[in-house]
């Protein structure tokens, strides 16, 4: 069976198990460019801030030492983990087959409530890491994967699923699943336990046959026993008083998945499964408003426009003036991916920031 890295055209999967991003606000923060870490600016943070990111994925055993390295580097800094900050964990899925990817997604959804409780109760309902029960629309994408497999992954719309607690878009972009649930912190043991839980999910997903077997296993035992079966000795860390009811709700919300999986392998039933995920009856959907933004010369941005970075913008909200210097008038051209209302900005292909419109100039035909 094909593995995800083959979909990306790689002969071998990318090495490493995890990549971690830790968002921090505070004072006296230091830029870290060593020990496997890179510091980048993130427009969603305020004041003095950094997003500390693994330079490249590392194997499971190296996660903790690398976290300890960062904690040591920042021990003199005044760290403020506001509601804007979070810890995102990318788990490499490149070496997984379609079924194994589905297994991980299904297992995660069944255990999502205890996971979110562990990652911070205030994260429930948080718009940056919405649970399945906060945003059922996630099921549109999950169903797509369960019916079409890897082909379905390619059809996930950008930005429509990104703020789920399990970000499926990362599968398309990086060949990883991104878990966004954890609140901002730099507690090494706390983060490491979270990473271990995800690691065990993937390990379990590699060993069990398919989502039907997961469903049947869940059906045979109590939700708590099921969690223990998957997570092993760390499962107690994830228990809390309402867990059974919460897990039953997750089970209910994801109940179609094993049946969709079963039906997709039956040519007659596959037709029905495809019909079920065609939400043609959604007649009142409101498309997200597209921001009307204009460049330095008053030309309106359109998706696909070629632009150059012309002006440095002094903006107290954006702490990236220094980075801007590198790009201003360097002759490089970028494609406009989209324009965004909140905050006003233009997303350029291959660049991690939103650019204020007045910092750009559109190079229209005839101007080259």
């Amino acid at each position: 069976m094909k593995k995800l890295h083959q979909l990306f055209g790689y002969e071998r999967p990318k090495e490493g198990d995890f990549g971690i991003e830790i968002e921090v606000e505070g004072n006296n923060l230091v830029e870290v460019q060593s020990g496997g870490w890179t510091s980048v600016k993130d427009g969603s943070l305020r004041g003095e801030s950094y997003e500390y990111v693994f330079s490249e994925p590392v194997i499971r055993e190296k996660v903790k030492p690398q976290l300890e390295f960062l904690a040591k580097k920042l021990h003199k800094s005044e760290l403020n983990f506001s509601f804007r900050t979070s810890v995102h964990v990318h788990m490499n899925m490149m070496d997984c087959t379609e079924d194994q990817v589905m297994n991980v997604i299904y297992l995660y959804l069944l255990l999502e409530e205890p996971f979110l409780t562990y990652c911070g109760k205030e994260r429930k309902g948080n718009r940056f890491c919405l649970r399945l029960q906060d945003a059922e629309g996630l099921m549109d994408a999950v169903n797509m994967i369960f019916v079409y497999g890897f082909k379905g992954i390619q059809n996930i719309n950008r930005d429509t699923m990104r703020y789920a607690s399990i970000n499926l878009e990362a599968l398309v972009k990086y060949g990883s699943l991104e878990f966004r649930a954890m609140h901002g912190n730099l507690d090494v043991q706390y983060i490491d336990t979270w990473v271990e839980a995800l690691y065990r999910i993937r390990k379990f997903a590699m060993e069990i046959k398919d989502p039907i077997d997961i469903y049947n296993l869940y059906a045979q035992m109590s939700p708590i026993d099921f969690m223990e079966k998957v997570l092993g000795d760390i499962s107690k860390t994830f228990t809390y008083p309402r867990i059974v009811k919460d897990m039953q709700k997750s089970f209910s919300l994801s109940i179609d998945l094993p049946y969709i999986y079963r039906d997709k392998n039956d040519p007659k039933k596959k037709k029905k499964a495809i019909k079920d995920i065609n939400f043609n009856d959604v007649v009142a959907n409101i498309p997200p408003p597209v921001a009307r933004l204009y460049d330095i010369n008053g030309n309106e941005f359109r998706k696909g426009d070629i632009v150059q970075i012309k002006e440095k913008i002094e903006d107290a909200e954006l702490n990236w003036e220094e980075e801007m210097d590198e790009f201003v008038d360097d002759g490089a051209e970028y494609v406009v991916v989209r324009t965004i209302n909140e905050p006003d900005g233009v997303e350029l292909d291959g660049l991690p920031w939103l650019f204020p419109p007045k910092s750009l100039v559109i190079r229209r035909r005839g101007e080259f």
Partner: protein
Amino acid sequence: MVDDLNQLYRDSLVLFKNRPVYVEGFFDNNIVSYFDLTDQRSRVKQYEEGMFLPPTRRIGFVNIGQSVIYVYRNPVRKYKVGYSLENLKFSLPDVRFPFNRTAAKERVMSLRCPEIVDSMFGRYPSFPEAMSYLETFSGACAIDKQFALGASGVVFYRTREVGKFKRTAESVKDITFSEGNEHLIMLLENTYEKATPIVRV
């Protein structure tokens, strides 16, 4: 500050003291105007940090104008804390809307109607109650967040038709699920909130 607050909350539905409220806007000195969906009244208050919480209760089927609309959120990359037209989907099943389809849709999409409160808090008629309503309704009636009965005898699960029932049906056990949807009975028998698996795939 006011701009930030408007960006986060204005024109969205959030929880204030566990009551769904629609935030109308923020003004000078962080004065906020909001509309309480439960008592259908607007109020003005001094905003305090943490006053509005994200809605942790799903909406699901909304019983509206003797028919139903299914409402759910997408995890889109938007800044609104609560439910808003930017992050919600409104799905109208293939049933009649006796009191004007557009009016029903607009009422729900206003995010101010009390029917949304009933849905968020899981207040739905029982199956027998819904059957008695359907004797006079020509549209549909939801019996929980995920299931609705159409007057023509069809059962809807979220956005799709999954089975049929007869006029003589007395309980959810009398629903005939279409092929491939038989497993959904367990959600109805256990009630959605307490669903436990009782059949094997």
